[in-house]
């Protein structure tokens, strides 16, 4: 909780700024609409957190989301009875992609940056080949209800988000979380003290794949089938995690802060949109955040050595 404090403060400021520009935001319906929109990114950020805290990256989540939505539309093709089997299949595909990412990273010793970048290209290429650039088929109403509908006034996506968030926090408090953290902090030390490092990392990748599957179900439900649905989501998820103060390279940061980072990013986008600033700027904002957050993290670590450098700068 203590680690999540700075980002929560930023989040509160942004939410207040949105409320000033758009008072409707303070009403339950307005706020729930925001949560609903943020849910897929927050879930992806939770998944990405597990991978990043273990010292790796997952760049494949965006194209995995796209692939899942396109596959769902093609297989369901408007047929209600296919809804549940396809949802089960999507989750299996998510876990499977995570498993492949994890196994290649740990057993074949290929850097995860390369593995998941390759997976991104493989998935987006496969989707393009399969669809020829435009998706076919349609999602059923039963599938779309998770992204569109709700239990009374509360959207399903918000309930799913709560469940995923609780599960993520519980996982990090359990033994798994401690081993994962140790793995990311110092892989060799963790291995020597009996942690099955590879297994922890593979599991983290599978969680990220699972998160992508859930996010795909929510996003596909929200707006229907589209071949651009996952575009850039991997960067948004990584930005969110970094914004939450989780250190790239692993070993530090809380999952709550990572999810708060995703909320903050979504709030920032909402605010930019409210003030009529072009959506094209979203990438720029994300880029600045990633660089700034990592730079800030690098300055803090060798704190004892920095005053001298700082003095030199001030003098020159």
């Amino acid at each position, binding site marked *: 909780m203590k680690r999540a404090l700075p980002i929560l403060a930023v989040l509160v400021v942004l939410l207040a700024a949105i409320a000033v520009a758009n008072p409707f935001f303070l009403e339950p319906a307005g706020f729930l609409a925001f949560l609903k929109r943020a849910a897929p990114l927050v879930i992806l950020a939770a998944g990405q957190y597990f991978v990043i805290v273990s010292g790796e990256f997952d760049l494949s989540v965006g194209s995995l989301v796209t692939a899942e939505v396109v596959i769902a539309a093609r297989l369901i093709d408007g047929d209600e009875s296919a809804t549940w089997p396809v949802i089960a299949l999507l989750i299996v595909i998510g876990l499977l992609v995570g498993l492949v990412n994890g196994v290649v990273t740990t057993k074949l010793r290929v850097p995860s940056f390369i593995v998941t970048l390759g997976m991104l290209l493989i998935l987006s290429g496969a989707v393009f080949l399969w669809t*020829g650039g435009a998706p076919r*088929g349609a999602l059923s109403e039963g599938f779309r209800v998770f992204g569109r509908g709700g239990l009374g006034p509360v959207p399903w996506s918000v309930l799913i988000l709560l469940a995923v968030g609780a599960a993520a926090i519980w996982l990090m408090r359990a033994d798994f979380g401690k081993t994962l953290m140790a793995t990311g902090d110092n892989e060799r030390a963790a291995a020597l003290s009996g942690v099955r490092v590879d297994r922890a990392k593979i599991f983290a990748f599978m969680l990220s794949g699972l998160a992508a599957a859930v996010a795909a179900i929510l996003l596909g439900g929200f707006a229907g089938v589209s071949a651009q649905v996952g575009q850039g989501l991997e960067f948004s998820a990584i930005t969110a995690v970094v914004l939450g103060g989780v250190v790239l390279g692993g070993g530090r940061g809380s999952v709550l802060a990572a999810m708060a980072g995703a909320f903050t990013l979504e709030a920032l986008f909402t605010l930019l*949109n409210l003030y*009529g600033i072009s959506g094209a700027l979203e990438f720029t904002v994300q880029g600045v955040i990633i660089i700034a957050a990592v730079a800030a993290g690098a300055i803090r670590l060798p704190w004892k050595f920095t005053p001298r450098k700082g003095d030199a700068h001030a003098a020159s």
Partner: protein
Amino acid sequence: MPRHKAAVAVFSALVLAGCTTDKPTTATQPAAPAASASQSAQSAGTGTQSKFFVQADFDAQLAMRSQTPEGPSDKPWEQAIAPQMTDTAKYKKDGPYHLCFSNAAVNNPWRQVGWKTMQAEVGLHKEIEKFTALDAEGKDDKQISDIAELQAKGCDALIISPNTTATLTPAVTAACGKVPVIVFDRGVETDCPVTFIKPIGGYAFGADAAEFLVEKVPAGGKVLALRILPGVDVLETRWSAAKVVFDKSKVQVVGVEFTDGDAAKTKSIVSDYIQRHGKIDGVWMDAGATAVAAIEAFEDAGLPVPPINGEDQQDFLQKWKDANLTAVAPTYPTYQWRTPIIAALKILKGEEVPKMWNLPQPKVTSENLATYLKPNMPPLHYALCGCEDLPGFPETWGGKKG
């Protein structure tokens, strides 16, 4: 003293000039929601006119809408509006023919439907011995090398659907010297091709939609305009025509937003506007692919769907019928993909063709919706494919028989 006075005059003129050039910029980029609201109360809220806007083309296209095209009325892809015929005797040769096609891309449903239609059209003609097509995958540089490659393949005629206008012009000009060239869909900045085939165009599309909204939305009503992205001529013309129509009307354009053609983004933007304004009385779109997402934003907010325009895409037409919407669908017909093949054969047989082949560009209205809606076709199919009589329909286009 006079010199001083002159200086003052010059200075104040400069200041005034500065003021007048500043004004449009502030109107297009509202600093805050409050500011944009007050500004749009004064003006129509449509911002400055696009630099792509050409008044003469606009007038010509709007006039073409009411002209009767020449040619068989049951085959609009063979029709032409006010054609100026050009002689092709010098290209006459005996068959069989080898036709070549440099395609900009097949990266959206519109181009996919068109591409399938073109291939089916090729299949109709026995005199086409060989059809070589290269897909530039949306890249100018690839298309430039594709065009060069095709020239070396002994094509009897070269069909080009340019990826962008300016960049492809030199490549097209070079090809013109060696082989009869047929350009369609997007244009090039040279008149060297034997014929340029296109529907009436973007101005007519944008105006058709905007005129419908102006008619259906009550005076003072709030209209939201959704565009895919700025800077593309075929889309800029659609919006600039709509702007002209809206500026003359009593409706108020509360926002002009870019959706990137993304359904989720479209839905979020529309939801935001519904929240901010309480009510939106009309939605104008420069393309129909995300129209259903925009409609869903109203449905999910529990509001009636206001007058809206889409395109002739199946999912929109279906929604239109099911929800009994107040809607219109201007089109950019995919049947134009049949015409280049027909034109190429005419040219090689020495028959004259229109220099500017303007195809009719019908719009779907509630009166003729039933004729265009085909429930067995997939959601992203374009109704004006002109492909119903082609072999392989409907399966090749992803439809079901029956």
